[in-house]
């Protein structure tokens, strides 16, 4: 019988690798050591991402909220917002987010017309300057319409200023109703309005302006105070921004205004757009160009 190698350990370990129990114990010990190292992390959830730090109830400094008096006075701004029916910004008063919300609300308020909620003159001038820059850069056609309610003084005189305000508000709504969302409708003051239409092809200018005019013409304004209705019309003057050429907002506005005066002069409730560059020479023009010239030639 061949001599077998003597086995280590007891008879229980027959069939197992030698030293397996030692290795098992060592593995468990290693796991324990790793977990015990991680334990503080698990036990300390405040430092983990996504969790809000818990105030320590025992810490007196944190228990009391900071009552550092802000050097800024917000009461008048808040009063103004409340007065004009604008929602007060959300969030904890005095926090940076709240302050930003307050500034945004004030900016919004100061660029709107109080009566109609349209863009006011200030916002309009900013938008116009931006549009002039854009047109000079991109060469896209842009149309500026100047609008004015016809015989508005008559409305004021016969129905009172309250009715006048209602008419202005109704016209403002009508204007907003018939332009694209990208267009800016502004009230410049009194019964004067303006619309900036970016990227409006020159062939569509007349159509758009005519649609606006007709929309107002067909809309009788119901007067809440006296009952009854009043019909108003508007005159529209328009001019396209000179493409590629850097113009000025004032110049553009003057050109639209001039067309508006022409529309007023020609009987009101009219659309007049500044003639765009028509390179088409009409038959009459040609006739005048050649006729006498050829006669001269035959002499």
């Amino acid at each position, binding site marked *: 019988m061949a001599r077998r190698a003597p086995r280590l350990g007891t008879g229980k370990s027959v069939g197992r690798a030698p030293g397996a129990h030692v290795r098992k114990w060592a593995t468990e010990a290693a796991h324990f050591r790793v977990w015990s190292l991680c334990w503080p992390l698990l036990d300390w959830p405040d430092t983990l991402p996504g969790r809000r730090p818990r105030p320590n109830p025992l810490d007196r400094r944190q228990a009391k909220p900071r009552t550092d008096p802000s050097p800024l006075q917000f009461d008048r701004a808040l009063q103004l917002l409340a007065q004009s029916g604008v929602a007060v910004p959300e969030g904890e008063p005095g926090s940076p987010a709240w302050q930003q919300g307050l500034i945004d609300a004030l900016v919004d308020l100061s660029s709107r017309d109080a009566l109609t909620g349209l863009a006011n003159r200030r916002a309009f001038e900013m938008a116009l300057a931006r549009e002039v820059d854009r047109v000079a850069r991109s060469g896209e056609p842009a149309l500026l319409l100047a609008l004015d309610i016809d015989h508005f003084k008559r409305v004021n005189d016969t129905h009172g200023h309250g009715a006048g305000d209602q008419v202005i508000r109704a016209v403002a709504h009508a204007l907003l109703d018939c332009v694209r969302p990208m267009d800016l409708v502004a009230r410049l003051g009194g019964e004067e309005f303006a619309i900036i239409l970016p990227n409006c092809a020159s062939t569509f200018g007349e159509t758009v302006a005519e649609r606006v005019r007709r929309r107002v013409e067909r809309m009788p304004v119901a007067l809440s105070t006296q009952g009854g209705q009043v019909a108003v019309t508007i005159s529209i003057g328009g001019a396209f921004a000179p493409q590629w*050429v850097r113009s000025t907002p004032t110049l553009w506005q003057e*050109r639209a205004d001039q067309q508006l005066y022409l529309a007023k002069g020609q009987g009101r409730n009219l659309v007049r757009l500044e003639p765009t560059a028509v390179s088409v020479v009409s038959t009459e023009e040609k006739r*005048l*160009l050649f006729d*006498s010239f050829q006669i001269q030639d035959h002499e």
Partner: protein
Amino acid sequence: MTLTESTPRSHPHIFAVTSGKGGVGKTFVSANLAAALARGGRRVLVLDADLGLANLDVVLNLFPKITLHDVFTGKSTLADAILPAPGGFHVLLAGSGMVEYSRMTPEVRDQLQAVIDEVAPKFDHILLDTGAGISDVVLYTVSLAGEVLVVATPEPTSLTDAYATIKVLATTQGRRKIHLLVNQVRKLGEGRAVRQQLQQVVDRYVNPQLDSPVRLELLGDVPSDNAVRDSVLRRQLLMEALPGAPAALALVQVATRMTAT
């Protein structure tokens, strides 16, 4: 009110030579007028602004290695691209086949503006030889110039196109003074008759829409002359080849009138 104040017109000595109709002698007039001005001791530059179909090099018999295209792409400096031409003036050639520039993009616009701003102080007269038609490239090029020179011939087609050009320039660019040069005139006083004719139609159909009337100024007329054809076929400047020809003398007269204004 007009756009005259708004557009950069700081370079009154820049003349845009345009016509509406092609083939009325824009390039011929530009080159020979430049030669006539240069003869008067002026520093003159002719810029071939017909970016799509440039042919000033053909007229001048030049084979440029460096063109405006290289300036635009940054391969060459502007100073290298300005070449001396036979008539004693300088040229900035576009190089035929700059097809990508035949459409006006903001980049082309800015580059052209930059080129003109750079060369403007260095010359007494700059002539922008524009392309035919009234495309946006032509209109933009014209808007860079302080003065416009419309070249027309007494033919009905040319008159119509010249009139259309004048109309567009008056309404879109607020031009109120437009110079007129009548080319290929067959009779004495025909230039004046053409100017009067155009002015009459402008007064009737264009001026009522404007705040101030457009005035056409006849810079001169150039007689129809066989010497012109000969010089063009020989690819020589008329002012160089046949300076005594009637057309050449008429162009000298135009040049003196230009320097006087």
